[in-house]
């Protein structure tokens, strides 16, 4: 591996050094650095002891800088191509075919024939096309393929046409294995090359930046938060490994690599949720998280396999996308695959009905929740759908429709999760359900065709939800490690001003109020449903728009409840709360700042007059791939001021309602947190609803008691029973019956023998299992007689027959 990469260095040094392409080609360093940190911590962690966090902070920081630099290079390339394009606009079309040989990266091979926009395994599904091509990746070979995607940007009339830079793919042949079918090489069977590599485009860089920033801040924050923990070193080791895995997954060029990264983050999540494994609830939560994700992984594996064959035996993501866009892949394959992959999304990204692990995952340390269970890992499902979007686009039949499974699951989750957040009293659980709800938003966005909106919400959500989680950590740090907002908090706004301010900002962003980040991203999703008159998106998902609006209102409501109970009213705890140290508050401030600012990355073009023309929709331009060979042309809804106003009014109204509810309660009793004679106690229906919510729709009972309990209990016991009493019984019966036959023969020869029978019955009564001991009575004479008799009979038979 390293050999080929040093080869790249040499090659890069030989020619004129171009920083951006160097960055694009060596993006693998970003996950490699935290991975190295993991190894170092594993090997030497004990020596660093309490300073081990510096290792993690340094590597993740370096990775962040690298990612930011690459993102900068990407943006500058984009911007320069716009000018380039406007100069050469006469040509109308630019297709760049970068010869790999010229780049000095590839092995010999004639690419003059042109390179179709595919991924690493060029020769795989284009066997006929490239029958004479010598283009093959030898083991360990490395090649750079730059894509020639059509520059077609939006389809909207009057919008500026944008030239999108092509993704830069570097890959490395991981291994080759025999093909499928029973053909030989001569009969046209080919061996399959499995490759790993890095893909640099807007989407992957976006994830890299998000992960880099949040992970860096969490590393810093944790150095105070988990200080003196019993397993400080392990904590940082897994934090590093997690960062490396998610970055590895983000850069995946093949679905196989995606699966690897996907599973690795799952394991890190398992280890970190169960960080304090001495207590059983923590390890239970870790197990639940892992197993629920495994259920989804069935879908992932099967879906990826279907795609593999659908795309003509390739794991390469761009090849698969190309097959989906060009229609090479059958509709059945795409539908089956997208439904299977939806299961994976449901588990990893906490979608209804597989979301139940996510709230339980809060058993882990709070910074872990911020990093893994809010900002990064749980969005892996969203990211995966985004990566394979053409498959979903076709498989789910997204454009021009008004309903599909993906959008429905998202909508259900966003409303269902939001409702559950109302009845929690643990602040982390509130945030967890809020995360579930917001992830539902993203899935909804993907389901209705608003790709950019989903990615943008992923981007902004990471910051404000990260901020909220770290804020919750700060609160618990102050309040004796408790997260109970009813019994341990209240009136903290004066005691913890920084935490309060940042928490407020992040909550406003979450609630989607102008001008915070959430406003912009949420608005885009609502626009993207196309349900609102005049938005003109990919379809008309009216029902889903309504559900989205309901969820928006709920978000504001439950966050108001949480904020009131935490920061207003009287303090109800037993310790002296104090503001957290700077190491913890500075990350909070940075994230809060990002929660405000990031929203402006993608404000609509028709807002703020000329500013919108010039600086609007930057996120879309940078991140969204251009329509072309590997990506569909996606419509973008026109932003609508009225929709934004309606959504905001709903949110504000809900917040005001909740606020007044608690204000009246406060007026009645300063330390009360709920009405003793509330609606739930007066109305039977309301009470039933409350119980229904408190029991989390009874899903946990179904899973834990009925499904898992059933399998582990009766079903497994039955399997074991069958093993012992049926299969083994058959075996034992064969033993017993042959012994019985033997005994019969023995008695026949030896009628008068009482002794043997006594012997036999004695042994058989006591040693039922030891079947074969029965004939072993130890009497030499009996053996000899039997032997002679048997031999004689055998001889007689032999003589008579032969």
């Amino acid at each position, binding site marked *: 591996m390293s050999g080929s990469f040093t080869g790249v260095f040499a090659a890069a040094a030989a020619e004129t050094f171009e920083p951006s392409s160097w960055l694009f080609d060596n993006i693998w360093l970003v996950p490699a650095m935290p991975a190295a940190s993991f190894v170092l911590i594993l090997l030497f962690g004990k020596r660093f002891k309490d300073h081990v966090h510096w290792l993690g902070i340094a590597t993740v920081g370096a990775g962040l800088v690298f990612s930011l630099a690459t993102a900068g290079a990407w943006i500058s390339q984009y911007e320069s191509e716009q000018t380039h394009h406007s100069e050469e606009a006469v040509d109308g079309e630019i297709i760049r075919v970068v010869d790999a040989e010229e780049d000095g990266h590839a092995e010999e091979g004639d690419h003059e024939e042109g390179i179709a926009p595919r991924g690493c395994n060029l020769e795989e599904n284009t066997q006929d096309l490239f029958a004479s091509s010598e283009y093959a990746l030898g083991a360990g070979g490395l090649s750079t393929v730059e894509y020639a995607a059509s520059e077609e940007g939006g389809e909207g009339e009057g919008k500026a046409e944008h030239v999108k830079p092509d993704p830069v793919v570097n890959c490395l042949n991981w291994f080759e294995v025999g093909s499928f079918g029973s053909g030989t090489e001569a009969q046209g069977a080919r061996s399959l090359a499995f490759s790993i590599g890095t893909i640099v485009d807007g989407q992957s860089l976006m994830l890299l930046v998000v992960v880099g920033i949040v992970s860096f801040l969490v590393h810093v924050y944790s150095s105070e938060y988990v200080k003196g923990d019993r397993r400080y070193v392990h904590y940082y080791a897994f934090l590093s490994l997690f960062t490396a895995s998610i970055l590895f997954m983000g850069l995946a060029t093949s679905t196989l690599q995606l699966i690897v990264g996907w599973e690795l983050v799952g394991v890190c999540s398992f280890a970190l949720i169960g960080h304090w494994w001495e207590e059983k609830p923590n390890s239970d939560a870790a197990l639940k998280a892992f197993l629920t994700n495994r259920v989804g992984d069935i879908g992932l594996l099967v879906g990826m396999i279907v795609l593999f064959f659908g795309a003509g035996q390739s794991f390469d993501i761009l090849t698969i996308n190309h097959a989906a866009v060009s229609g090479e892949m059958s509709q059945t394959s795409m539908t089956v695959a997208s439904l299977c992959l939806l299961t994976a999304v449901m588990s990893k990204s906490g979608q209804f009905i597989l979301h139940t692990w996510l709230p339980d995952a809060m058993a882990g340390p709070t910074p872990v929740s911020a990093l893994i269970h809010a900002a990064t890992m749980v969005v892996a499902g969203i990211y995966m759908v985004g990566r394979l979007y053409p498959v979903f686009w076709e498989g789910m039949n997204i454009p021009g429709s008004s309903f599909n499974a993906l959008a429905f699951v998202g909508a259900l989750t966003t409303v269902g999760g939001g409702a559950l957040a109302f009845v929690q009293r643990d602040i982390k659980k509130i945030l967890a359900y809020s995360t579930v709800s917001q992830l539902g938003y993203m899935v909804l966005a993907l389901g209705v065709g608003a790709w950019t909106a989903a990615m943008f919400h992923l981007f902004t959500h990471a910051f404000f939800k990260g901020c909220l989680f770290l804020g919750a950590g700060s609160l618990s740090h102050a309040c004796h490690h408790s997260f109970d907002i009813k019994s341990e908090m209240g009136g903290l706004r004066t005691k913890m001003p920084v935490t309060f301010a940042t928490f407020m900002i992040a909550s406003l962003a979450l609630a989607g109020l102008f001008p915070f980040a959430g406003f912009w991203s949420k608005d885009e999703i609502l626009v993207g449903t196309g349900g609102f008159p005049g938005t003109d998106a990919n379809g008309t998902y009216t029902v889903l728009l309504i559900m989205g609006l309901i969820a928006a209102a709920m978000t504001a409501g439950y966050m108001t409840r949480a904020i009131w109970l935490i920061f207003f009213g009287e303090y109800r705890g037993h310790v002296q709360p104090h503001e957290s140290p700077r190491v913890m508050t500075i990350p909070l401030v940075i994230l809060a700042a990002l929660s405000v600012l990031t929203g402006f990355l993608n404000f609509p073009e028709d807002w703020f007059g000329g500013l919108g023309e010039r600086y609007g929709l930057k996120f879309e331009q940078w991140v969204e791939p251009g329509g072309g060979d590997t990506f569909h042309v996606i419509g973008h809804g026109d932003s609508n001021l009225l929709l934004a106003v309606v959504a905001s009014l709903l949110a504000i109204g809900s917040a005001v309602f909740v606020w007044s509810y608690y204000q009246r309660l406060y007026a009645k009793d300063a330390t009360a947190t709920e009405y003793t004679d509330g609606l739930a106690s007066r109305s039977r229906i309301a009470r039933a609803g409350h119980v229904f919510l408190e029991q989390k729709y009874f899903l946990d009972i179904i899973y834990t008691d009925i499904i898992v309990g059933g399998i582990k209990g009766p079903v497994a016991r039955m399997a074991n029973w069958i093993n012992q009493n049926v299969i083994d019984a058959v075996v034992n019966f064969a033993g017993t019956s042959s012994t019985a036959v033997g005994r019969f023969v023995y008695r026949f020869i030896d009628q008068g023998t009482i002794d043997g029978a006594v012997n036999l019955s004695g042994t058989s009564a006591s040693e039922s299992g030891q079947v*074969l001991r029965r004939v072993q009575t*130890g009497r030499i004479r009996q053996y*000899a*007689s039997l032997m002679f008799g048997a031999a004689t009979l055998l001889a007689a038979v032999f003589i008579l027959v032969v």
Partner: protein
Amino acid sequence: MLLNQYLLLAAALFVIGVFGVLTRRNGVLVLMSVELILNAVNINLVAFGTFHGDIAGQVFALFVIAVAAAEVGVGLAIVLLIYRNRRSIDVAEANLMKG
């Protein structure tokens, strides 16, 4: 003179020897019965040697006699050992092979 009469005699001796081995309790008697069996075999060897005019029959009979001598020597030693250890040479009690 028929070859068969010698062979039948040998068979009779052999079967009697087997009977002795199977029914005798006394170790020394078992050994004697074994000698009887060996003698039966020897008769066969010599009879066939004579019948075919081949000296090999006699030679093998001689070998068997020698081996029998060795066998009796070791066998008796074992019987003595059993006797010394268990104060009995009843082979029916020698059921150590019982699993």
